[in-house]
């Protein structure tokens, strides 16, 4: 079963050392994402429609809200990987950039000597599993190296792409708000489409076009985020967390969590801590 060696939460977002032996289904999150191969079995990360083989030579970069999935390459095994979830606002504050876009120019990150060094430093800190004042700085440097590399030779269109996000159709915005308010209910997509002032097909089409993901994926993201928060900051049992999020049993919640986050919720609670 997939597990975690270490998970750190902080102002930066999350950083995890995972040992994954199962795929992670297509999902998305509001953080930017970097995934690096560390040891054992190789894997593929599918970002939108691009398959990135992560290995000694390449890592993967995923922009906020980009749908992506993970699978092992070449049959069964365990992939040890470093997975970073980086809050755009944290990167912005540290980089002093005015263009608010932690948006990578390419999904394929070459493991240059410098990137590799920073990845190993971060991995060492995670393996020590102790709070370190160095963690934020290492994570920032890792992200910055990858960010700059991803735009080298590319025309920087990230900002305008990001700017367009802020002109999302008001009906889609309304649906986002409704989902945020009611994601723990058993939300019917027909109802959501109607409440947003659209027919169901038009709603799905417009939502996908403007957000890049389906409404169902967005709902899953909200549930996964809330589950992680509850696991981290409350004493609620895993069963109760699942029920509160609208799951009918602990088993269905555990399946959902493991296939979206990578590891089971009880395992996540066991290893994760706030730095």
């Amino acid at each position, binding site marked *: 079963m997939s597990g975690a060696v270490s998970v750190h939460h902080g102002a930066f977002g999350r950083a995890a050392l995972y040992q994954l032996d199962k795929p992670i289904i297509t999902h998305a999150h509001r953080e930017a994402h970097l995934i690096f191969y560390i040891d054992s079995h190789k894997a593929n990360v599918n970002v939108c429609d691009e398959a990135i083989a992560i290995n000694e030579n390449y890592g993967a970069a995923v922009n906020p809200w980009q749908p992506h999935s993970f699978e092992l390459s070449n049959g069964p095994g365990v992939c040890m990987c470093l997975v970073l979830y980086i809050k755009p*606002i944290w990167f912005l504050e540290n980089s002093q950039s*005015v*263009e608010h*876009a932690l948006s990578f120019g390419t999904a394929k990150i070459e493991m240059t000597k410098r990137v590799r060094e920073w990845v190993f430093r971060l991995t060492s800190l995670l393996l020590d599993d102790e709070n370190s004042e160095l963690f934020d700085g290492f994570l920032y440097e890792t992200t910055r190296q990858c960010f700059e590399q991803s735009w080298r030779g590319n025309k920087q269109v990230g900002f305008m792409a*990001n700017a367009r996000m802020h002109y999302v159709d008001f009906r889609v915005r309304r649906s986002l*708000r409704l989902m945020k308010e009611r994601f723990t209910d058993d939300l019917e997509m027909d109802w959501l489409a109607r409440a947003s002032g659209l027919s169901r097909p038009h709603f799905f089409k417009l939502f996908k076009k403007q957000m890049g993901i389906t409404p169902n994926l967005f709902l899953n993201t*909200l549930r996964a985020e809330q589950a992680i928060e509850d696991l981290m900051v409350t004493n609620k049992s895993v069963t109760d967390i699942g029920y509160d999020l609208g799951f009918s049993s602990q088993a269905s919640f555990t399946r959902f969590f493991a296939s979206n986050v990578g590891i089971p919720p009880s395992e996540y609670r066991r290893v994760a801590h706030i730095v």
Partner: protein
Amino acid sequence: MTLITYLTRIHFADGVLEDALWSELESGKKRRPLIIADNEHMHGDLAERLLAGLPIKSRAETYCDIPPIPTEHCARQIADIYHESACDVLLAFGTSRTIDLAKVARVAIAHSGSIGRFTHKRGGSSRIGNALPDLFAIPSISGFGAAVSAHAPLVLKNGERTLMMCKNLIPAVTICDPLLTVNATAEQSASAGADAITHCVEAFLSKGYHPPADGIALDGLKRAMENLQPVLDNGSNIHARREMMAASLNGALALQKGLGACYAISNALELVSDCELDQGGLNRIALPRVLRFNEDAVQEKLQALARTLKMRKQRNFVEGVERCFDDLPLPKLLSELGIGPSQINEAAVIASSDLATDTNPKNIDTEDYLSIMRSVH
């Protein structure tokens, strides 16, 4: 020796609203915001962007009845909603009047009874205390002065117009997102530009020794003069919008040093007018005349302003401002704003006792104010 204090947390980036708001509310564990915004800001795309920045499981209350000048009555209404709904933070979204109202409401929330005893005139600044609810300010096309300043105008229940002043009134967080301005009209953009230029020029020329404010003012002026026309030519020019918002913020930060006669005139006319006046529009009318009035007392500083804009002579700076303002789609005379001679008489008296009069670079009295306002009536 001078005391320089700067100031509050400011997020500034294109499209930063949602993430900054989310992050600030999350880190403060705030889940019950009370949003204060006028109807224009609480409907459509602007409102949806604001609401998208609320963390999961937040439940927001809203208050949209924004008067032209904050009133004790409205501040009390906000305090009632805040307490009844167990809110834990105020979000002021929009213009100066909204943000100023929220500042006054903080005092009403923290203290029961009349808020007249907290006014500057009655020595109430020290009574305001620091147990105020948090306020996050989100200015849009205007409102930057209110978003980083320690004062707010106020009309008490007895009709008295007065002022609150206390550093604890400064919003804890200010979020500046240039993308909030792209749908502003040409008139709104011109007014915001005139306001930014006026704040920068008056702060720079004002009495006092404040090198950071002077530097910020010069930088803001340069950005504003270079980008106001591009914004008016193309409202979707994100670069120019960003530079104009930076100029507005610079102007607001610089005005901590002090302002001058133009600000005093605008404030006074707002107080005596029967209708709602636009401060940027008032500044557009008054600043060139005030500059002519002050000219002989600030020759070196006018040369510095001219150099910043790569003009050759100080005279060119005043003329440059006149030319720039002449092209703006804003009224050119006070009479076009419905201001009559009797209101000018009244405003001249009020302006002469404004705090900004004390920092104007040249001594100015009621007669001078009358003369300036009559010349642009």
